[in-house]
Structures are given as structure tokens and as C-alpha cells.
């Protein structure tokens, strides 16, 4: 065994290093995938516009077909505080700590956390 280790060349060592790096990277990647989601993703017209932490209180203004929509993050909850769309469905939705708020006229979707946790539970979708 000692003989074998002594006989290793630079190529062998590089290969070992590569394999070890891959394993370490794997630990970090899986750790990230398993961490609980606590993000607010704001999508405009099907594309992600903002990804914000749920634990930091703030106000975000997002432009859309009906002017600016004011989104409020407070105490790990999110709501549409102000919108100029005709039906106001998004405002009526109120505060959410998980799930989705949709404003169709402004083509706006606010997704709150959960997806990583769902993956952890082995769930592809939720009904109800």
C-alpha cells in the first residue's frame, strides 16, 4: 500500500484532488438544496425580477401595465399594499407567509418560500 502511494504521479494526485473537490462541492450543493425556503420571488411577465429575503422588512415598488405596484414584506409575511389594477384581487389577498399572490392585469406573481422545503418533503405540487 505504502509502495502504491509512493508511486503516485502528478496526474494521479490531480485526479484525487478533482474527486475530493467534487465530493466537497456535493456536500455544499445538497446542503443548499435542503435548506428551508425563506425567499420572496417577484416575477414580472413570467421572468424573475427580484429575489428577496423574507426576514428583512421592506417595501418594493414594481412597474406594470397599470403603473407601480407596492409590495410590502413585514414580519416574515408579504402583501400587495397598493396596486392600480381594476379588480384589486392581489390587494384583497392580504398577507401571506407561504404561497402565491397573482396580479393578472400587471402580469405580476409573488412567490413566497416553500419550494425548497417541498422538494425536501418529496412533493411536486400542492392541492388545496
Amino acid at each position, binding site marked *: 500500500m505504502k509502495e*502504491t502511494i509512493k*508511486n*503516485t*504521479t502528478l*496526474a*494521479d494526485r490531480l*485526479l*484525487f484532488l*478533482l*474527486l475530493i473537490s467534487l465530493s466537497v462541492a456535493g456536500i455544499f450543493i445538497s446542503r443548499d438544496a435542503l435548506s428551508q425556503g425563506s425567499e420572496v420571488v417577484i*416575477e414580472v411577465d*413570467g421572468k424573475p425580477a427580484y429575489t428577496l429575503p423574507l426576514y428583512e422588512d421592506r417595501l418594493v415598488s414594481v412597474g406594470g401595465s397599470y403603473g407601480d405596484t407596492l409590495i410590502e414584506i413585514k414580519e416574515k409575511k408579504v402583501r400587495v399594499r397598493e396596486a392600480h389594477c381594476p*379588480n384589486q*384581487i392581489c390587494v*384583497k389577498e*392580504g398577507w401571506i*407567509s*407561504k404561497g*402565491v399572490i*397573482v*396580479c*393578472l392585469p400587471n*402580469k*405580476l*406573481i409573488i*412567490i413566497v418560500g416553500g419550494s425548497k*422545503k*417541498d422538494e425536501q*418533503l*418529496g*412533493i*411536486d*405540487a*400542492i*392541492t*388545496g
Partner: protein
Amino acid sequence: MINFRLFFPLLLFSCLLLSSCSADKMSTYKKSKALLDTFVAITVVADSKETAEEAIDNAFDVIEKFGELINFYSDKSELSAVNRNAGIREVKVSPETLDIIEKAVYIAERSGGAFDPTIGPEIQLWDFFNKIRPSDADIRKNLSLVNYKNIIIDKGNSTVFLKKKDMLLDLGGIAKGYAADLAVQALKEKGISAGLVAVAGDIKAFGLKTDKKPWTVGIKNPRQKSSEDEIIAKIHLSGKAISTSGDYERYFMLNGQRFHHLLNPRTGYPAYACQSVSVIADQAVMTDAFSTALFILGPEKGLELAKEMGIDALIIDDKSSVHTTSGLEGILFLERNH
């Protein structure tokens, strides 16, 4: 000089490691969009991002076009034209609109009116956001406008007529399921053999995931207390749809009583025999409407109807007891404490 004795086995090992990841070229792709006044998420198994995106975008377009036909709130929709002309004249509609109304009437008939797409005038009286409970007199007055038998469909001429003035056809209890079916059909036409379409909580799954396993759908706990007990059960689905109707979706509490959006078409008041009902069947149009019907009927009559229709159901009654049909054995997994 390279040590071949050690180098080759390691190289072989690395190749095996990499090939185990790439042997199956199929991957999972997911996209979401705001459609039908809700959140639509489509997941597909495909060999490339381009194939997946093209198929998903096409499915979104199909849902969007369908939504324009049956949007209750848009003056331009065919559904609004039917409602505006209630008691006046029949309205010519496209095959899709005719088809969904036909299906809605069929489910209304089979459920003995527990599901009724003419519930519109009663729903309009309630304001769940501002916690406004309508007066008993108003509820009674509008009841005469609720009856699916007053929908006159002329298939030959492709027309729909609501017999009484002020009747309102509301397809909100069936449209999302119908849209999920349309989307799955559109994905299959684009060559996708496995995927999951979720139009809010109306979900249809087909084919198997990349790990050759069926899709897993979580069913929400109607009386969730923390983030730990959000899911009451998990179900494995392939080639099946699931929908859930619950008293926790749109509701308000007044003097200790829960007022929710699942109104009994016979009384105009919320139905109280269940907390939530999930229905599993081949088509999402069926699961969407029958979940409402079973909720209104309650656990006993609901399970009877499910058996009669050859569909499966998970019913959580007003005392949080769980009732299921036998078809869910082996695919439904209740979480602990239930």
C-alpha cells in the same frame, strides 16, 4: 511517468460516476405564469431546455386563449355575453365554451345539483374580503336564479341561453380543471410524455418522473396550525388528476362562525359537513367540479356519489375525521397524527 496501475482504475471510476449522471438525458423543467386569475405551474420531463420551454409556452398560450373565452370578469368573454343576454336571447359560442358548459351541466345533473354553475347570483352577494354577510332576504331572493336546468344548450347551433333574466353562469368551479386538461393535451401534442400541470390546486399528472416514479402531490391540512403540519397527506399520481375544495380558501369568521365560499346551491349558505374534499379521477375537469359537489353533499352522500361515478375521494369532515374510497389504497399516505 504516469502510474497506469492506479490511473486507469481511477479514470474508469470517474467515467462511471459521470455516466451514471448523464446516461438518462431526460431532465425536469418547470415554469410558472399568472393565468386565469391564478398561478399556473407546469413541470415537464424533456431532453432539452428548448423542447421543454417550447411545449410549456404553447400550453400557457392554450390556457390563456381558453381563459379569454370564459373570463367571468371580462366584458369581452363569451361567458359574459351569455350572462348579459340572460332572459333575452341565446348566444353563439365557440366549441370550447360549449364543451365546458355541457360538462358543467353534466356534473350538475350527476350530483343532483350539489354542483351548480348558475350559483353566480348567490356568490356575488358575499364579500369574503370585507367580511360582509348578505341578508337572509337577499339570499332567499336570488335562490330563484340558481338552477342549472335553466341553461339551454343548442349543440347543433352552438348556442347557450340562460332562461331567466339576471341569471349568472359562473364557471369558476370547473374552469381551472378544464384548463389543466387542455394544457396536458397541448404538452402531449408537442411530444412531452411526462409532466405535471398545476392550475392553482387543480393538478393533472402524466407519465413518470426522471427517477421512474409517479408524481407526488401534497394535500393541504384544512386546519393547519404551523408550517410543520401544512400537509395532511401525500398522494402518488400518474395519468390522474386531483382537486381540492376547502372551507379555508376564501372565508371570514363572524361571531365564532366560519363563512366560506362553498355555497349550497339549494340554500345559498355555506355547507358545513366538511372541512376539505379532494377528488382523484382521470380528468381534472371532473376532479375540479366533483370536489365542490362532494363538499356540499357531505361525507356520506359524497362517498356514495364518488363510488357511483368511479372516482376516488379523500374527505375530511367537520370533526376532522378522514374518509377515503378504496381506490386510494397504496397511493395515499396520511401524515402522522391523522
